[in-house]
């Protein structure tokens, strides 16, 4: 089965064309890395696939479900890990996780939540308001939420930024686990070195057009 399949996705703002007929396929158990300079349309593409925006033309499917017509089914299977960590400042880490899981219709045992919070090394701060978290800690908490939600399709926007070495290692493990579960991962990043360690295929977005690039070029060329 195909995790993400986009057909001729275009997005236009007035006369500014952000995406031009992007075709994209990410299989299950496959990680696709997306490169490109700032403003190339990476985030827009991820937002469209995450059902946050509609494409102007073209269509896409997540696990065989139409991303516009069967939005609610699609939303239950995918998760976008973006810059804003989707955390409420006045709730503590624990409550944030509970709220996020509740909206996904999940209720997990406290033990399980505790284990994951410990894994991303913020178990000790579980009772602290997120307002007092550093950017890296927020990112780790967002990562914990994603781990608990166990999405089948994972969309990552600049996942490696603001994380420290240990954090990146945890993220990498999580990506590999998702792939092992048969999930699909699409990530937009500037970190070619890290991406090469998990990605099976890669592409470059330039002025809204997507071009595939061979993996071995990641070591030698700079695509951003």
């Amino acid at each position, binding site marked *: 089965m195909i995790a993400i399949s986009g057909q001729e996705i275009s997005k*236009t*703002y*007035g*006369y*500014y*064309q952000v995406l*031009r007929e992007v075709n994209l396929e990410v299989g299950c158990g496959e990680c696709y890395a997306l490169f490109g300079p700032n403003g190339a349309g990476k985030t827009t593409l991820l937002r469209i696939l995450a059902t946050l*925006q*509609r494409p*102007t033309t073209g269509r896409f499917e997540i696990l065989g479900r139409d991303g516009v017509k069967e939005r609610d089914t699609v939303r239950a299977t995918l998760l976008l890990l973006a810059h804003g960590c989707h955390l409420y400042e006045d709730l503590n880490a624990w409550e944030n996780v509970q709220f996020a899981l509740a909206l996904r219709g999940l209720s997990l045992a406290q033990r399980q939540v505790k284990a994951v919070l410990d894994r991303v090394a913020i178990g000790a701060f579980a009772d602290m308001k997120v307002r007092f978290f550093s950017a890296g800690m927020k990112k780790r908490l967002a990562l914990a939420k994603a781990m608990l939600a166990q999405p089948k399709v994972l969309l990552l926007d600049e996942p490696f930024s603001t994380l420290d070495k240990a954090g990146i290692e945890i993220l990498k493990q999580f990506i590999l686990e998702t792939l092992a579960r048969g999930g699909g991962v699409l990530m937009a990043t500037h970190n070619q070195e890290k991406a090469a360690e998990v990605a099976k295929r890669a592409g470059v977005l*330039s*002025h*809204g*057009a997507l071009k595939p690039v061979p993996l071995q070029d990641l070591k030698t060329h700079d695509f951003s």
Partner: protein
Amino acid sequence: MNKVIRRIQRYQGWFGAGAAGCLLVGLYLGLIASPPDYYQGEVVRIMYIHVPLAHTSLLAYTVLFGGSVWYLWKRDPLVDNMCHAAAGLSAVFTSLALFTGMIWGKPTWNTWWTWDARLTSFTVLLLILIGYLMLRTFIDDPEREARFAAVVAIIGFVDLPIVHFSVEWWRTLHQPQSFSLRGVSISSDLLFPLIMMSIGMSLLFTYMLLVRTQMLYLTNLLHAKKGRLLGQFHLSKADS
């Protein structure tokens, strides 16, 4: 180009001609041929402009409401262009109706303005439409602009009857409706030109709606084409 647009271009002239015909006949009958009113004298003739304007502004808002529901259902950008056009026209007709109403009010009621139920409802309508048009300028994503505008139009349309009733109750509470036109029977030689003018004004609105919708659609099309060319240019420059 869009098939609908081509059809509009073919038939819009008929609406324009119809509007011109009806309005000319209506104006002649209303302003020259019909007798002056027993109570109001020559002043009553502004009715032939004022009442059709008020009718048409409500017609325009009804079109806006229908179009907004349709847009949310089908998400057709052309329908959104029609809504945008209808809202602008509705705002114009509403302001003209209020303006002519004030001119009419001065000699008959001896005041430019009174918080009569109908005047107040039309003012609220105008405020809603201005809010609608302002909202449209504050959104960058055209898809989101169309969606939000449709929501505002629908909520406003549902609100209008409630506004009207509440203001009417409020008026009857504070002073008897001495100004109301209701109950004044209109004789048939006044009624016929009024109907002519109403039909003419509605046709004029339809004609303007078609032209304006086309204009908005073509502007968007032009922008999109320009953008595509610009993008291709950047792309080819990046490749070389």
